């Protein structure tokens, strides 16, 4: 039994639930049988991947849904062997080049070259080109992005790229200039609620009260994937649904909130050690470090007044950036916590002094 997230993924452009105008545009785009390289961007859980697969289906028919997992081998110029997992159909290949870290250049180049040099065997009624989907393009090294520039132009006759990313900020201008940008905004709260109710619960034969659907949509920050997971988890906990039912929030969010409360409660080296343990716990459970930073910040500023809020934000931004340059997340999160403690303690003492 598959999760609802996969089970109810629309398969055709015409079946998409929201951003209908854009779906129409995409349809027009492939109607000519051709399209430029695409750069699809939008926040997580906005439905980028779904839209891309619908587009491919529009182009090649249902054959693109017959996927196979392949282990491809590459060799770097320094003779280091690389293995990467790709997801492919007869018409396209999907790969996340950042899986191989700094060797992504090799993967990107070789993959496109092999694909582009093999013409479609049976071209009757088929497209002239294959499609390469590269995910998490913002994580590509600068070298790999540079390497893409001319490759994209050179092989355009036999190969189209669909680049998928959360934000275009880290995509170099030379690549942006070669792609058609397709922005996929997150669905609105109403749209998420609508999907939960009509496209999923109805088909499951469940009755989801509109109030609860809206609360789920709000709690998941317009992230449809999270909303669906939340909805499914909530159903497991209690069905039939009731309006006031408690939502099953992910454990780690609760844990993080408690951690923030501990930081505000006491500022001492001993407490810092305790907090460190808890952060370790989160990191070992693969919670992304930026989520930890954002979660902490959100809770911590609740206890600060105007000017202090800005200072704390600035600390978070500073340390989070540092973290990305280093290799041990725990150091930087801990540094942020320590800096906050110092700042907050000073603030408390000063406001105490003012009172007397």
């Amino acid at each position, binding site marked *: 039994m598959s999760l609802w997230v996969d089970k109810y993924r629309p398969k055709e452009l015409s079946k998409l639930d929201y951003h209908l105008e854009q779906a129409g*545009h995409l349809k*027009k*785009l492939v*109607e000519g*049988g*051709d*399209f*430029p390289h695409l750069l699809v*961007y939008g*926040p997580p859980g*906005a439905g980028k991947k779904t839209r891309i697969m619908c587009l491919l289906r529009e182009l090649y028919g249902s054959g693109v849904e017959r996927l196979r997992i392949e282990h491809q081998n590459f060799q770097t*110029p*320094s003779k280091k062997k690389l293995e990467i997992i790709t997801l492919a159909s007869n018409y396209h290949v999907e790969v996340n080049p950042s899986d191989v870290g700094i060797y992504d*250049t090799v993967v990107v*180049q070789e993959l496109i*070259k092999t694909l582009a*040099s093999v*013409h479609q065997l049976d071209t009757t009624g088929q497209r*002239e080109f294959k499609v390469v989907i590269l995910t998490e393009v913002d994580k590509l090294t600068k*070298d790999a992005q*540079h*390497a893409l*520039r*001319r*490759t994209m*132009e050179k092989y*355009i*006759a036999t190969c189209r790229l669909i680049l998928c990313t959360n*934000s*275009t*900020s*880290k995509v170099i*201008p*030379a690549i*942006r*200039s*070669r*792609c*058609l*940008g397709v*922005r996929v*905004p*997150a669905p609105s709260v109403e749209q998420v609620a609508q999907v939960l109710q009509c496209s999923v619960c109805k088909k499951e034969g469940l009755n989801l009260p509109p109030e609860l659907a809206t609360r789920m949509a709000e709690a998941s*920050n317009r992230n449809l994937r999270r909303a669906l997971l939340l909805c499914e988890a909530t159903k497991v906990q209690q069905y039939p649904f009731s309006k006031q039912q408690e939502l099953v929030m992910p454990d780690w969010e609760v844990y993080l909130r408690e951690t923030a409360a501990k930081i505000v409660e006491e500022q001492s080296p001993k407490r810092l050690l305790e907090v460190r343990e808890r952060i370790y716990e989160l990191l070992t459970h693969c919670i992304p470090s*930026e989520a930890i*930073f*954002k979660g902490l*910040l959100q809770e911590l*500023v609740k206890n600060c007044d*105007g000017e202090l809020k*800005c200072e704390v*934000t*600035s600390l*978070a*931004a*500073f340390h*989070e*950036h540092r973290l*990305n*340059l280093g290799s041990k997340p725990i150091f930087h999160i801990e540094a942020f916590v320590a800096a906050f403690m110092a700042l907050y303690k000073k603030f408390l003492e000063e406001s105490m002094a003012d009172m007397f």
Partner: protein
Amino acid sequence: MHAFLKTGKLGAGAGGPSSGEGSKKAAVKKALVPWVEKYRPKTVEEVAYQEEVVAVLRKTLEGADLPNLLFYGPPGTGKTSTILAAARQLFGDMFRQRVLELNASDSTTVSSTRPDGRPCPSFKIVILDEADSMTRPAQAALRRTMEVQSRSTRFCLVCNYVTRIIEPLTSRCSKFRFRPLAQDVLEDRLTTICRSEGVKFEEGVVAAVVETSGGDLRRAITSLQSSARLRGGDVVRVSDVLDVTGVVPDELITHLLDACSANSYEGVKERLSVLLAEGHAASQVMSQLHDVVLANPHLSDLSKAAICEKLAVCEHRLLGGGDEFLQLLDLSCTAMQHLGRGA
């Protein structure tokens, strides 16, 4: 390198049958060529706005010797097109045998770049596109190759960032900087393309494309074709162009600044979440904030300077992998401290 040699051979060997087939198909499916390729200048004369290099190449076409060349400049200013056009004009049908077009990023180590030079004698021009992604050792190796082959071969290095090319190489080449194209040149090109493609557009579309392209003609043409394609033959609207180019709607930026002026941290946070949920890129937001802040008459010069300094810091952190939301929030806090104070 193996890959290159293979593809190089394949390209030449299998060139006959596949190109024949290609042209047959091309007749049927003309529409498949993107406009950027279709309207790539075919002769040096057609290259707009880069008079300096055109003058040098014109001399070469008239029989003068060609120096080694180094083209550098931002994307979409005609670097690749210029050298390809010149080579085509110089060699005509011999193009395939006399010109080797290398994508320097094909080969990133010494061992693979050296052999790149080896077939040099048989070629007249070696184009090293994207030379800035060659490693330093590879560049050093090229230095030697350039000297050894200097009698029979001219090199043309093409790159975005000249600072990434080692000095000994740059000093062996005549350097040409490709400037971002001027507005009227862009407008001119785009209108020509619109006319020959029969694109219908409402007033201001061309201006909007030019505005958002920042002198990058490739980007301008891509946006134009994309908006035209998305509309599928209907009249192209300015809003389509803005959507395709990823510009953040002005009111979202204004809302953000309003929240800053109102000194509301929560408000700012809310607006930023909306911006990011809508899928706008933080870098784009920053660049538009920059323009708006500079034009704001209520801010003192000192405040503007402070905000811009923070902007630079946040942009740097963003490119260094910082989180979009945190960096924007930090920046907005600074803006708030300056804008909110006046209120």
